[in-house]
C-alpha cells in the first residue's frame, strides 16, 4: 500500500479536531467572486478609459510621439515584471491585505507596515483624485445640460450623492460591485476606443512644450495609469479558486491596459487623439460639437467614478485586514451579516475620500497629491519585488529566472523613484518630496511605536486565508497554537517560525552544583 492510499484510508478513522483551525478572514464572504468579477475589479481600478484620454494629453505635452510610445511601452514592461513578482505570492496565498500581506511574507513586519502605509496612501489618494476628476467631469456634463453646479454647496452635494451611490454598491456585495464596475468601465472604454478610431480631424497636434524631465512625467503617468492592476489581490479570500483567478487577473490586467495605452499613444502620434484631447481640455470652445463633449465627459465620469469606487473597495479590504490584525481599531472588522462586506471599513474609507475630494476643490493640492501617490505606487512595487526574492528564498522555491526578473524590476523601480525625488527637488518643489519621505518613514515609526507599546500585536501581522481544518486531510496535518493560541497548520518536523518560544530545560549551571 502506498503512503498516499495509507494516508487516505487513515483519514476516515481520524477524528475531527476539538478546536478546528479557521481562517482569520472567514467573516468575509469566502469563495464567491468568479474570475471575470475579479478582473473587473482590477481593470476598473486602473480606469483605462479615462487614462486613454489623459495619457495622450501628457504625451503631447511633454514628449515627442516616438519617445512617448516607447516610454509607455517601457512602463508596461516594468509593470508586467512587477505583476510577475506579485504572482509569486498570489499563487501561494490569498490575503485581504494585498501587497501589504505579501511584503510581510518576504521582508517582515517593518517593511510590511511601510508598504501598508504606501498602499493605503496610494488607494485613498487615487480614489480622491479620480473622485475629484469624476465629479468635475460630471459637473461639466450637468453644466452642458444647463444645470449649474459650480457653487460650493452644489459641489458638496454632487460629492455626497456620488459617494452615497458608490457606498451603497460596495456594501451591497463584492460580486454586485464588480459587475456594476465592469458594466460601467466596458461602456466608457468602448466609447473612447470608438472615438479614437475616428479618422484624424481638426488641428494638427500641438508641439511639445519641452518642459524639463518630460520623459519622467510620461513614464510616471503611464506607471500610475497601470497601477491598480494588483487591486484584485485584496479580494483573494473572496474569490473562487483564488490562487488561479487572482494570478490570472494580475498578469492579464497590465497586458490589457498596457495594450490600450500603447494604442492611445499611437493615436496621439497620428493625430487621432487630438480631437479628443482638445474637446476634453477646452469643451465646445475647441470647435467640438456639444453632444461629443457631453458624451466624452460622460464616458470619463463613468471611468473615473468606477475607478474611485474600485480603489475605495480595495482600500477597505486593506483596512479590514489591519483591523483583524489589531493594528487599526477593531470596529473596522465589522462585517455585514447578509452581504458579508466590511461595511465599517467601507464607510470610513468612503468618508475620508469624499471629504478629501471635496476639500481639494477649494485648495489646489491635486498636483502634490498626484506626485505623492505616484511615488507611493512605485515604492510599494519596489518593496513587493524585493519581497518576492526574499520570500522565494525563505520557502526554498526560488528559480534563477524568478530572482533575476524581480531584481531587474526592483532596480528599475528604485531608479524611477530616485529620479522623481531628485527632479522635484531640482524643480524647487520640496513639498512633495517631504511628504513622500515622511510617508515612507511612517511605517518604520509605526513599527517602533508598536514594538514599544503593543509588541503582541506585531505577531498578528500578515493574516491571510490560511488552511482550515476542513481543508486538510484528517490525520495528515499537524496543528499547533500560534502566538495567540489559535490553532494553525504547521510543518510536522521543523518548528514553525511563528510558534511561541517553547520553554526549554534550563542549561546546566556549574555554579548551582
Amino acid at each position, binding site marked *: 500500500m*502506498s*503512503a*498516499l*492510499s*495509507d*494516508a*487516505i*484510508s487513515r*483519514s*476516515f478513522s481520524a477524528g*475531527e479536531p*476539538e478546536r478546528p483551525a479557521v481562517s482569520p478572514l472567514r467573516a468575509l464572504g469566502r*469563495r464567491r467572486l468568479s474570475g471575470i468579477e475579479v478582473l473587473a475589479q482590477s481593470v476598473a481600478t486602473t480606469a483605462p478609459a479615462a487614462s486613454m484620454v489623459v495619457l495622450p494629453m501628457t504625451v503631447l505635452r511633454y514628449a515627442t510621439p516616438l519617445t512617448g510610445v516607447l516610454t509607455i511601452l517601457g512602463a508596461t514592461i516594468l509593470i508586467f515584471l512587477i505583476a510577475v513578482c506579485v504572482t509569486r505570492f498570489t*499563487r*501561494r*496565498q490569498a490575503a485581504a491585505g494585498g501587497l501589504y500581506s505579501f511584503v510581510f*511574507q518576504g521582508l517582515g513586519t517593518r517593511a510590511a507596515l511601510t508598504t501598508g502605509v504606501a498602499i493605503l496612501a496610494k488607494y485613498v489618494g487615487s480614489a480622491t483624485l479620480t473622485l475629484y476628476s469624476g465629479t468635475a467631469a460630471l459637473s461639466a456634463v450637468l453644466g452642458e445640460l444647463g444645470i449649474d453646479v459650480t457653487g460650493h454647496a452644489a459641489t458638496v452635494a454632487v460629492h455626497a450623492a456620488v459617494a452615497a451611490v458608490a457606498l451603497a454598491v460596495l456594501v451591497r456585495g463584492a460580486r454586485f460591485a464588480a459587475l456594476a464596475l465592469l458594466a460601467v468601465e466596458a461602456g466608457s472604454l468602448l466609447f473612447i476606443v470608438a472615438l479614437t478610431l475616428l479618422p484624424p480631424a481638426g488641428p494638427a497636434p500641438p508641439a511639445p512644450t519641452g518642459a524639463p524631465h518630460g520623459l519622467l512625467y510620461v513614464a510616471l503617468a503611464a506607471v500610475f495609469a497601470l497601477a491598480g492592476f494588483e487591486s484584485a489581490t485584496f479580494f483573494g479570500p473572496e474569490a*473562487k*479558486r*483564488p*490562487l*488561479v483567478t487572482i494570478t490570472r487577473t494580475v498578469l492579464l490586467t497590465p497586458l490589457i491596459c498596457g495594450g490600450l495605452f500603447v494604442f492611445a499613444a499611437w493615436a496621439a502620434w497620428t493625430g487621432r487623439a487630438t480631437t479628443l484631447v482638445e474637446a476634453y481640455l477646452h469643451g465646445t470652445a475647441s470647435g467640438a460639437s456639444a453632444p461629443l463633449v457631453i458624451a466624452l465627459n460622460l464616458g470619463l465620469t463613468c471611468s473615473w467614478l468606477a475607478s474611485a469606487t474600485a480603489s475605495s473597495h480595495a482600500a477597505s479590504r486593506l483596512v479590514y485586514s489591519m483591523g483583524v490584525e489589531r493594528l487599526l481599531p477593531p470596529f473596522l472588522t465589522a462585517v455585514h*451579516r*447578509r452581504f458579508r462586506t466590511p461595511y465599517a471599513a467601507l464607510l470610513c474609507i468612503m468618508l475620508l475620500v469624499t471629504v478629501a475630494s471635496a476639500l481639494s476643490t477649494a485648495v489646489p493640492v491635486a498636483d502634490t497629491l498626484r506626485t505623492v501617490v505616484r511615488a507611493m505606487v512605485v515604492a510599494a512595487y519596489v518593496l513587493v519585488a524585493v519581497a518576492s526574492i526574499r*520570500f522565494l528564498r*525563505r*520557502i*526554498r*522555491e526560488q*528559480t534563477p*529566472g524568478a530572482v533575476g526578473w524581480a531584481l531587474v524590476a526592483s532596480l528599475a523601480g528604485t531608479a524611477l523613484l530616485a529620479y522623481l525625488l531628485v527632479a522635484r527637488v531640482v524643480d524647487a518643489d520640496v513639498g512633495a518630496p517631504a511628504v513622500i519621505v515622511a510617508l515612507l518613514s511612517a511605517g518604520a515609526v509605526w513599527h517602533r511605536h508598536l514594538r514599544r507599546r503593543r509588541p503582541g500585536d506585531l505577531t498578528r501581522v500578515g493574516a491571510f486565508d*490560511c*488552511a482550515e481544518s*476542513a*481543508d*486538510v*486531510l*484528517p490525520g*495528515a*496535518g*499537524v496543528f499547533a497554537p*500560534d502566538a495567540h493560541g489559535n490553532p*494553525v*497548520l*504547521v*510543518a*510536522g*518536523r*521543523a518548528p*514553525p*517560525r*511563528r510558534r511561541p518560544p517553547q520553554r526549554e530545560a534550563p542549561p546546566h549551571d556549574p555554579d548551582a552544583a
Partner: protein
Amino acid sequence: MLLEAVAQLGSGATARDISSLSGIPPATAYRLLNLLVADGFLVRVSDLSGFALGRRTRELAGEVGAPAAEDFSTAHAVVEQLRARVRFGIFVASYADDRVRLVDRDPDHELAGESVIRTHLHASAIGKLLLSHRPGLEPRGPLRPLTGRTIVEPDTLAAELSRIRESGIAHEVDEIRVGRSALAVPLRDSRMTVIGCIAAIGRTGRVNSDDEELAGLLRTYAERIVAEIMA
C-alpha cells in the same frame, strides 16, 4: 507522484524535498504544486514553506481504496433522462461508508463548494438526508453557520432531521450558499436501507421546497435508479 511524495514526507514537506523525492525538476514541481494547492489537493502550512495533504485527496480514494459498495454508473442513462426533463442540476450521491460521495454530477450545472457538502452535513439537503438516516453521524460540537440560514441550533436540526425521516424528502434553502436551494430524496435498497440520494439543485426561487411535482418526479426516478443499480 507529487501527492505520494507529500504523503511520504509528512506534514510540512518543502517543495524542494518533494521535487527531489519525486524526481521532477524544481521549476516544474513548483508550478504543479501550486496548481494542486489551488485545487485543494494540497494545502500550505501557515508559514507557506511546506505542504500537507488536502481533504480533496479523499476523492482519489475510489482509485486507490476499496471499491464502492454499489455501482451507480449503471443508472447513468436513467439520470440523463431526468436531466432532459428539468432545468435544475440533477446530482446522485452515494452514502457508502457513511459519507457523501457524488457519483453522478450534472455536466451542465457546476456545483460550487462540493467539498462543503461533505464537510458540513448539516447545511445541505444531501447532507441532512444522510444525517437523518445515520443517527450516529450527528455532528458533535457547534454547527458552523455557512450562511444566515444554516441550521445551527442542535434542537432545530434534530426536528428537521425527524421531519426528513417522516416525509422522505430533504429541503435546503440558502443554507449552504446564498441563492442555492435543493430537494433531495433517498435511494433505498431492497431492505429499505438508504444507500444514497438523488438531488435537484438550483437557484433559490426556481427550486421551491413545496414543489410537489418536482418531488414526485424525483421519487419516481429514485425508484427507477435503484431498479437499475440492483438489476
